[in-house]
Every structure is written in C-alpha cells, then in structure tokens.
C-alpha cells in the first residue's frame, strides 16, 4: 500500500502559482527525498500534505485515507517534523512528547510506554528529563522525530529538518531517518541539500512548483554528481554563475 498518494496538486498565493499539477506516490518502507531550491514549492507541498492548507485542486491520500474527506484518519497516520523547531524549550523532552501524545488522544500509561519506545528509537532516552533548551540542534531534531513517532504513524514527513545543523549532526539525522524507512516507515524528506540524498533513495526534484524528475536518485544522477544534475535541471547554476 502506498504511504502517500498525491494527485494533480495545484496551489497559488493570489496570482503566484506555487504548485502546478504535482502528482507522486511514496510507498511504505521508502525514503523519498523531495529536493528543490528555495522557493521551489516544498513548504507549500508540506502545508498541503499536513492540511494546514487545503488544495483547491487535486487529492492526497495518507495510508489510504483521503485527507479531504477523512482528515482525522489521514492525520492520525502522519508524523510531522516542521522546518522550524516546535518544541517548547522550557519543557523537558518527556513533557514535550507527553503534550503531543495528548494531542493525538493518547494518555496515561500508554503514552508513557510509547514515549519511552520513541525515545529509545532515536537514542534519546537518557536526555528525556532535560529541558529542550539545553539540547543542541541535533538532539532537538531527534526529540522532534521521536515526538512524531509516538502514535506509530505510517508516514513521516520532514520539512528541511537539517537546517542549522552541523555536518556531523546532519549525517547522524539522515542515517537515523533512513533506518526508520528501512524498518517500514514511509518517509518524505524535503531538502535543498543534495548530499542528504543516497543513490538508492527515491528522488522527486521540484522546481517552480513543478516536478522535474521522479525516480531513483542513482538513475537520475546516471553516474554524475547529483549536485551537478540538480543545478543543471533547476537552472540554478546559470542563475548563480557557477561553472559546471
């Protein structure tokens, strides 16, 4: 079963078209990188997938549930990590997770058990009682991913989760999320950094609201550096005056 089925999504801000007829599938157990330069429409697509906006055209299914007609069922199958950190910095990691569990309708011992399991999955158990403020950027992100997993979602959406992290933290986070996909989770990872994409990942390249490429990253790169292919396809190289 497909984790995410997006069909013919279009969206505009007034007269500015942000997405045009975007369609794609991401299967369970697949790590799909959504790669695009700034302003490509990644965050808009995320807002549609998370129902912060409603698409005037097209449809989205999350784990088989239509987001427009069965939003509760669809959102219940979705874990989200936003670009901006959404932890309450003055609360401990555990209390942040506990608040989120309640928002999912999970409480009591069940919540405690799920929180421990999610923290274990991200190697964050020992930091559970620390205030989020005292964590470094990488650990905050891990706490947010743990939070997104509390309700056992089938789909995990991450919107540029490595923004502001150093290289080691970035690599660690990418590895963690790949492991989650290998364990069966459907992962959509939005980024503008080509080094976060592995050859065996699914890759959707987005630019100016349109899908340029959709396939295995290794096939799209075809033996060339992915960065070079990305710059050529998006025209960013000419814009930036970069010699390829």
């Amino acid at each position, binding site marked *: 079963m497909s984790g995410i089925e997006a069909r013919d999504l279009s969206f505009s801000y007034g007269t500015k078209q942000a997405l045009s007829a975007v369609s794609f599938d991401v299967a369970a157990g697949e790590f799909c990188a959504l790669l695009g330069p700034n302003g490509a429409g990644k965050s808009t697509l995320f807002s549609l997938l998370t*129902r912060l906006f409603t698409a005037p055209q097209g449809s989205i299914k999350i784990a088989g549930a239509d987001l427009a007609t069965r939003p509760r069922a669809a959102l219940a199958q979705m874990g989200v990590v936003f670009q901006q950190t959404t932890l309450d910095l003055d609360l401990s990691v555990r209390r942040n997770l506990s608040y989120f569990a309640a*928002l999912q*309708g999970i409480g009591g011992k069940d919540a405690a058990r799920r929180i421990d399991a999610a923290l274990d999955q991200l190697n964050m158990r020992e930091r559970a009682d620390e205030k989020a403020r005292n964590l470094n950027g990488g650990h905050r992100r891990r706490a947010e991913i743990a939070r997104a997993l509390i309700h056992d979602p089938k789909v995990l959406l991450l919107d540029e989760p490595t923004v502001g992290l150093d290289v080691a933290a970035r690599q660690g986070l990418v590895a963690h999320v790949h492991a989650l996909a290998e364990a069966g989770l459907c992962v959509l990872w939005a980024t503008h950094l080509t080094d976060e994409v592995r050859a065996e990942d699914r890759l959707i390249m987005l630019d100016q609201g349109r899908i340029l490429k959709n396939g295995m990253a290794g096939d799209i790169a075809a033996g060339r550096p992915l960065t070079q292919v990305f710059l050529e396809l998006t025209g960013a190289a000419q814009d930036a005056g970069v010699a390829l």
Partner: protein
Amino acid sequence: MRGAVLVLRAIAAREALRFVRQRERFVAALVRPLVWLLVFAAGFRAALGMSIIPPYQTYVTYETYIIPGLCGMILLFNGMQSSLSLVYDREMGSMRLLLTSPMPRWWLLVCKLIGSTLISILQVYTFLVIAALFGITMPLAGYVAVLPALFLAGLMLGGLGLALSSFIQQLENFAGVMNFVIFPMFFLSSALYPLWRMAESSEILHDICAFNPFTHAVEMIRFALYAQVNFGAMAVTCAAGMVFLALALWGYDPARGMIRRKG
C-alpha cells in the same frame, strides 16, 4: 470522547504553564484594573454620582460600580493577550503542531479558548479578593454566581481574540489591535459609566455603547455579582461569542488559508 478530554487537559495545562512562566503578565493583568480602582475611581468618585439602577438596590460608591467593568477589563485584555500568543505561536510554528493533530480543528481552537478563559477567571478572582481587602465587597452568593458569567464573557472575548489572531499576519501588527479594538471596546461600554450618563452626553455614543458586546458582558457580570441573571445581556454575550467563534473557525479553516505563509 476520552481523546477530546485529553486534548483539553493538555492544552489547558500548557496555557497554565505559560501563564506561570510569565509572572509579569499576571502582575500586569492585576495592576491595570487595580490602578483604575484605587486611583481613577478615587478621583472620579465625587464627579460621577451613581443613581440607583438595577441590580443595585441602594446608592453604591463609584468603586463598587466599576468592579464588574474591571473584571471585564481583565477578561478583555487577557483575550487579546491570548490572541497575541496565538500569533506568536503561529510565527514560531507550535500552532502548526497543534493544527496537525487528528482532533477536529474546531475542538482544538475551543480547547485553546477554554484554557485561556480559565486563566482569566483565576485573575479576576484574585482581583476580587484584593478589592475585598480594600473594603469593596459583593454579596457572598455573587462570588459564586459570577463564575458562569465570567466563563461566558471570557469565551466571548477570547473568541474575539482568536478571530483577530487569524487575521493578523504579523506580530508587529498587534499594536493596531490595541488601538482599534481594546480601547474603543472598553471605553465605549458601561464599564466605567452607566449608559444613561452616556445618553446625557450623546445619543449616538449611547447607541454605540449599547451595541457593543462588551457592554453586555459587563452587565451580565454586574448582575451575576449580585446573584441575579440579566437574560438580555447573557443572550447578547452568547450570540456575540458564537459569531466570534464562527469567525475564528472560518479564519483557521485550511481551505480559507488565512494561516497561509508563502512556502
């Protein structure tokens, strides 16, 4: 059902925690009405004679008259304060987290509203205790009877704040709300002077005051503090509350996209 209660508890607890962390907000919320009560009212006591109007059965001091208005002031300012925090939450992203919960969006917003209203009521009671320490007391039954009135008024004013927060795109625009919503609402009401006094000065101003839902909230509180029910005021407060809540739900409707940020 259990899930809905869990959400309410979690959001109310978070509002309480935020309130505890912002002690200066608590102090400011109390200082404002206390300055009006102890300074402004003392100065105007002689100038503003009060006639015997319901619910009063005898002459009351000006300080006693403005107590319900100052309770309303706390609810009004808190309602706006919570709308400010909603705009902040939206800019910081935590509102997104809330809105991606599988619970119905209307319930999430109502939970926010109930949480902030409960905090406001706590502040009103603290204010009433301090007023009592200065000798301005109400009938004992009034302190109990006022609770549902405060809750209704708090929901109505919080609903207004929630609706406004969906329209305000940036935190910096919030100062405009102070000038164009809070002050007119407060001064064009029966909070500081009875409407008959306003009518003596200007019929138009009187009519505006009579139309203002804050006037009805204050009158509902005034009657409740004397263990009486002003059904007319209660009906207008409820109706205004429903309109504001409907506006807020419309504003936060993903199809309307008032919470849109360019991606």
